[in-house]
């Protein structure tokens, strides 16, 4: 296989042709149809370029120029896994569910690997994802091998579940495209703490897609700690649909990876549904991280809150794009969005595009954005009290982030976030 065919959209399509017979669901016509439609779409769209408005600030050329092998052929080992955060943990290595490494215990609801449950997923898999609109979701649909399937039955308090994803660090760059399906039935609740890690020296592509259904009165808390390896690409897309009175609470911390896109689509589909989307991006060296959110207010009396913070040092580049769309039926919508960036280096860049699109009149919607450096007066205040400059800077950065993290109610989630944040901050020389 030469480099020209190995890389870019062509490379993925070429490998799809080769893997067709080995991907899960080969004998299920509905899976085949999904994959073929997605392939057709990906073939015509290719990787989005910066001429596409939603990708104005993120250049995917490093991904499309790189050559990958699908993980299917190179399943690695999962020797040193960090200690679990809670009793139940689903482990994924290179995008594949590892039941042997997971601790699932017995609970009132089932946690399964997608590949083995595939026959029962017709109509559920692909019900929210929109591969026709998002080329990367098409790529995932074309090549997904596995994923997490969780269904919490009505009224069940599901407690905590850790979703841990590791890249094995094979010598050949791997690409994996897990598809995670999470469903909370009426009145159910669940907290998912998701982590993503990988070795520092290996190039790989992690392209997960989530389809999340939150039924009437259910509550899903979804905390994500992204600490991929320094050469990794993570391009993730979440689709969540929240019915009447339900709540979807997402916090995403982007600290790792070389090029990261965190795209979230939430539809508030029933009255009084609520969504919190918060996050922080901690960037240094040449990292590029992009958080893009789409919040669809499609029913009346819903509320949404978004707070995103980005800290940039080195030659890093941060992107925030957030769109709130209020449909005509969505009267009495209460929407708020704030994004703030702190620039610590003269070479860093932040691009921010908050967006309101409103078609209902009885609404309260606002957004704000600020960009700036550390406040010289605050720094002076701390220095005057004998705190060394680096420590003072560190304190101010921590305080900046604390505002976002404080809002995370679940203790386990918050501990995981705080650990990642304190690990990230090492005063520059």
């Amino acid at each position, binding site marked *: 296989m030469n480099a020209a065919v190995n890389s870019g959209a062509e490379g993925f399509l070429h490998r799809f042709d080769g893997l067709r017979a080995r991907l899960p669901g080969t004998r299920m016509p509905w899976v085949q149809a999904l994959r073929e439609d997605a392939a057709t779409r990906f073939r015509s769209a290719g990787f989005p370029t910066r001429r596409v408005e939603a990708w104005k600030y993120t250049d995917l050329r490093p991904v499309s120029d790189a050559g990958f092998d699908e993980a299917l052929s190179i399943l690695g080992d999962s020797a040193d896994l960090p200690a679990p955060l809670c009793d139940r943990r689903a482990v994924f290595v290179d995008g594949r569910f590892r039941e042997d490494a997971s601790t699932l215990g017995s609970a009132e609801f089932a946690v399964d690997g997608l590949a083995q449950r595939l026959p029962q997923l017709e109509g559920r898999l692909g019900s929210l994802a929109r591969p026709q609109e998002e080329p990367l979701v098409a790529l995932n649909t074309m090549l997904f091998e596995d994923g997490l399937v969780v269904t919490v039955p009505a009224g069940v308090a599901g407690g905590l579940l850790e979703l841990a994803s590791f890249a094995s660090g094979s010598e050949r760059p791997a690409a994996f495209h897990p598809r995670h399906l999470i469903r909370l039935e009426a009145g159910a609740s669940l907290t998912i703490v998701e982590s993503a890690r990988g070795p520092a020296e290996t190039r790989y592509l992690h392209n997960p897609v989530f389809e999340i259904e939150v039924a009437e009165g259910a509550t899903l808390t979804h905390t994500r700690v992204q600490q991929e390896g320094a050469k990794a690409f993570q391009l993730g897309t979440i689709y969540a649909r929240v019915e009447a009175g339900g709540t979807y609470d997402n916090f995403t911390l982007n600290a790792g990876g070389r090029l990261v896109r965190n795209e979230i689509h939430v539809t508030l589909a029933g009255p009084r549904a609520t969504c919190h989307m918060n996050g922080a991006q901690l960037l240094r060296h040449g990292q590029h991280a992009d958080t893009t959110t789409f919040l669809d207010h499609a029913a009346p009396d819903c509320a949404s809150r978004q707070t995103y913070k980005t800290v940039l040092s080195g030659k890093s580049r941060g992107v925030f794009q957030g769109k709130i769309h209020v449909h005509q039926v969505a009267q009495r919508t209460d929407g708020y969005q704030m994004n703030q960036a702190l620039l610590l280096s003269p070479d860093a860049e932040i691009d921010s595009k908050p967006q309101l699109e409103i078609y209902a009149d009885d*609404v309260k919607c606002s957004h704000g954005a600020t960009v700036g450096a550390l406040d010289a007066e605050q720094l002076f205040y701390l220095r005057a009290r004998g705190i060394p400059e680096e420590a003072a800077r560190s304190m101010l950065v921590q305080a900046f982030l604390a505002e976002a993290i404080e809002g995370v109610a679940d203790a386990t989630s918050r501990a995981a976030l705080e650990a990642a944040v304190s690990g990230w901050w090492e005063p520059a020389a």
Partner: protein
Amino acid sequence: MPAVAETLDTVQSVTEGTYKWGFSTDIEMDFAPKGLNEDIVRFISAKKNEPQWLLDWRLKAYATWLKMDEPTWPSVKYPKIDFQDAYYYAAPKVKSGPKSLDEVDPELLKTYAKLGIPLKEQAILAGVEGAGDSPSEGGRMPIAVDAVFDSVSVATSYKARLAKDGIIFCAISEAVHEYPELVRQYLGSVVPQGDNYYAALNSAVFTDGSFVYIPKGVRCPMELSTYFRINAKSTGQFERTLIIADEGAVVSYLEGCTAPMRDENQLHAAVVELVAMDDAQIKYSTVQNWYPGDAEGRGGIYNFVTKRAQCRGARSKVSWTQVETGSAITWKYPSCVLLGDDSVGEFYSVAITNNHQQADTGTKMIHVGKRTTSTIVSKGISAGKGQNTYRGLVRVAPSASGARNHTQCDSLLIGDQCGAHTVPYIENRNMTAKVEHEATTSRIAEDQLFYCRQRGLSEEDAVGLIVNGFCREVLKELPMEFAVEAQKLLQISLEGSVG
């Protein structure tokens, strides 16, 4: 001298002067055939007796335009424009106009009455056939014509005053002949020919517009206004305006007028270029109230404008203020490129969309110089089925240390069929820069309305009062002449949107 004789004299001098200044040449109405090609561009240039360099410049623009695609990114919808189905030079002016005021949309006439415009002037604004064409009728001067011509005569007397300070204020076609070095130096230096689709089209076929040069250290003694320079009827379809404020110069320029104007040219693609040198200040105010189409959204002007300022000098300042109430579609982003250290850019905007109107407007503030500051205040009001979009860019280049921006954009929704959208872009590449953006969307609160109604205000007056309060930050930036009229205008634009 009796008043009538004096008027006749004035009119006489003005009409003679008209030819000299080239304001409305070709009254004999020779016009180029429909369509657009290289020959039409040559024809326009030849008609204006332009030098070779300008013809070449136009042809280059035309060649560029041919290679460009019509932009589709703004959130506005309109049928595809057939560029071959339009006149680009002296289109027949009154052929399709109404024969008398009786044929004019009664809603339009009501508006005129509310603005207090005399009957004859109403006819001119509404484009009634023959109105304003005949300077005399049985030896007697129609009053309204006087009024309009008076504006011109005001301009003549002002012209002398301006000349005393060395200020140049004339039609751009005149400036091409009188001040070729200045025009050649600055034309296209802010908005190049290939800048965007409509700017390229304008560069190829522009026919009229203003040229202003304020010499070093001169503070222009009066507000300069298009309304005074050319009578309302001949505002060009492809206007080209160029204003240069040399070191330390100060000028305030007014564009447009509050009266709704009927215009047979559906597409307006103007280009405005401003250049401010060291310590210079330019204030550019616009009140745009072109025909918005009827209540069903038929007709109406497409206003696709490129306006840009370069603050080239240190401590220079450019301030854009706009009140956009007219046009079926408004699509413009008056921008500032802040090159000089400590230069300042400001943008104050009110945009109203009612019925089926669409507006996609905002600004770009490009910070390049050190300690440059910019302020953006945008107020969007949507009523009826109107769609209102604020689209803006604040870009801080790595060189712009200490740059500062504050943006405030608020939207007000009246009725549940309209839309309000906010699309700000913030790009910061300098850690010492501080950029802030805030946006809100709300509707007129019931309690505010109740409070006003309880005190005996009609619902429409109450809405007018609340809307004026909502826009106050912008309206107070307008020069006195405009501010009062603009307030009235806001209220009239929103008529029928409540109750």
